[in-house]
């Protein structure tokens, strides 16, 4: 299997996020998926750019799609923000012929062409749908039994479902199922489907803090060993934002590791915490790593 991949702006360039890229590369290679980086990838111009000007946003996102189309490949991305941008382009071009023309005209001025044939895929959906749980299970090296995870689906992988077409967003289960296949427990708790306020960072930081505080308190009350995110913005909020929340609202016992989704798979596939950058996260992952060392059974199979 061969896919083009767009990493987005944040994943390859933030200390706590490059482990996301490392884990994604390792996991896909382990599963026999060949990936080709979008050449000279530019910003996908997500919702914040859409807020300034929707036409600019769509045309910019279409640039990376055009590159994938040129290579004849579908486009994979680990970031929900990027995923949303690319799906939005295809959806708009399909539904509004006038906008399709406008986007193509703008692309032509940059000597680019996009017909709308590239399927944009979120990494987690790709793992579930195209790889499948049997295959993932057969590639496991160790079982993550005893690890309680708090999975954050976030907003932009699923909502609105009419646009993204993965699973109805109010009660999704597919990403939990993979974690459970790996032997971990995906804890159900109040608030785990609610927004983390990531898009408010940069425009209203106080508000972003208030929304995030509740999400972190929810997770803390649930007593998870680690949170797991599927989006770069969600990770920045829960991981880097955690320190802000701890100090600002004086929450003493707040210390939750935050893993990127493919890092969980990478651990089950036998990669070391260091190889996938767990030491680079802002919220320390050491309690989780210690628990993995002590409790993880060798030998595979759930």
């Amino acid at each position: 299997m061969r896919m083009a991949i767009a990493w987005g702006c944040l994943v390859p360039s933030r200390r706590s996020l490059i482990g996301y890229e490392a884990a994604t590369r390792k996991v896909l290679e382990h599963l026999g998926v060949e990936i080709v980086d979008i050449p000279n990838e530019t910003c996908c111009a997500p919702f914040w750019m859409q807020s300034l000007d929707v036409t600019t946003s769509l045309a910019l996102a279409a640039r990376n799609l055009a590159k994938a189309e040129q290579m004849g490949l579908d486009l994979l991305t680990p970031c929900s923000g990027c995923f949303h941008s690319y799906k939005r382009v295809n959806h708009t071009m399909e539904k509004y012929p006038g906008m399709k023309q406008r986007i193509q005209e703008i692309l032509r001025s940059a000597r680019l062409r996009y017909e709308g044939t590239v399927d944009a895929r979120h990494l987690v959906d790709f793992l579930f749908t195209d790889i499948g749980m049997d295959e993932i299970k057969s590639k496991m090296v160790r079982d993550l039994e005893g690890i309680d995870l708090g999975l954050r689906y976030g907003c932009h992988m699923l909502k609105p479902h009419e646009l993204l077409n993965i699973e109805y967003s109010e009660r999704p289960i597919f990403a939990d199922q993979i974690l459970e296949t790996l032997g971990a427990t995906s804890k159900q708790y109040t608030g785990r489907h609610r927004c983390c306020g990531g898009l408010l960072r940069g425009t209203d930081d106080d508000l972003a803090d208030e929304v995030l505080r509740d999400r972190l308190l929810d997770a803390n009350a649930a007593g998870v060993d680690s949170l797991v995110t599927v989006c770069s913005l969600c990770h920045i909020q829960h991981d880097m934002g955690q320190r802000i929340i701890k100090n600002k609202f004086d929450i003493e016992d707040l210390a939750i590791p935050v893993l990127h989704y493919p890092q969980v798979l990478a651990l089950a596939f036998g990669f070391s915490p260091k190889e996938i950058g767990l030491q680079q996260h802002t919220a320390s992952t050491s309690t989780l790593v210690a628990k993995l060392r002590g409790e993880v059974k060798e030998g595979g199979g759930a």
Partner: protein
Amino acid sequence: MGQTDEMRSQKDDVPIRDEDVDREFKYEVADHFGGEGLLRCLKCGACSGGCPVAAVTDYRPRKVLGNVLLGLKDLVLSSDDIWMCAACFTCEERCVQEVNFTDVITILRNMAVREGHASKGYLDMARTVLQHGRVVPMTHAVNRMRDKLGLPELQEPDMEELSQIMSSAGFDKILSIYAGRDTTE
């Protein structure tokens, strides 16, 4: 969690006076692509009920909709309210009338931007993209960290294509509205 003490959204100016009302406003919004659902709004409030921002402030999507439908154009476009949406799409997902409020917010923001009311934070991010091709410029420190993790060197964004696209889309004109205004790099 509790409400914050601070009043975060616009104050109510009642009664509404005729001279504040632009009767065409709602049609103007509904005419934009993505805004078609606006006129179907029942003002039932399901959007406010599920809104994560409404849970911690007195921002309410239904109230924004009410003001748009009333025709309070100036008030809506100059208010902080339209910049408080976190774009989580929960309201859009739950609305029985398929109003697509998050798309309506995008339209309102695009209009507000043209009237000089852009969010400063978002504008700064756009300027960074225009200059560096990505919202986070690369640093040597990050490249060293990538190297240590065995990641390939990051390719430079194609700045020629990017700036051509942004100027053909008219983004230069939008930025020129804000030229000379104080923004931090």
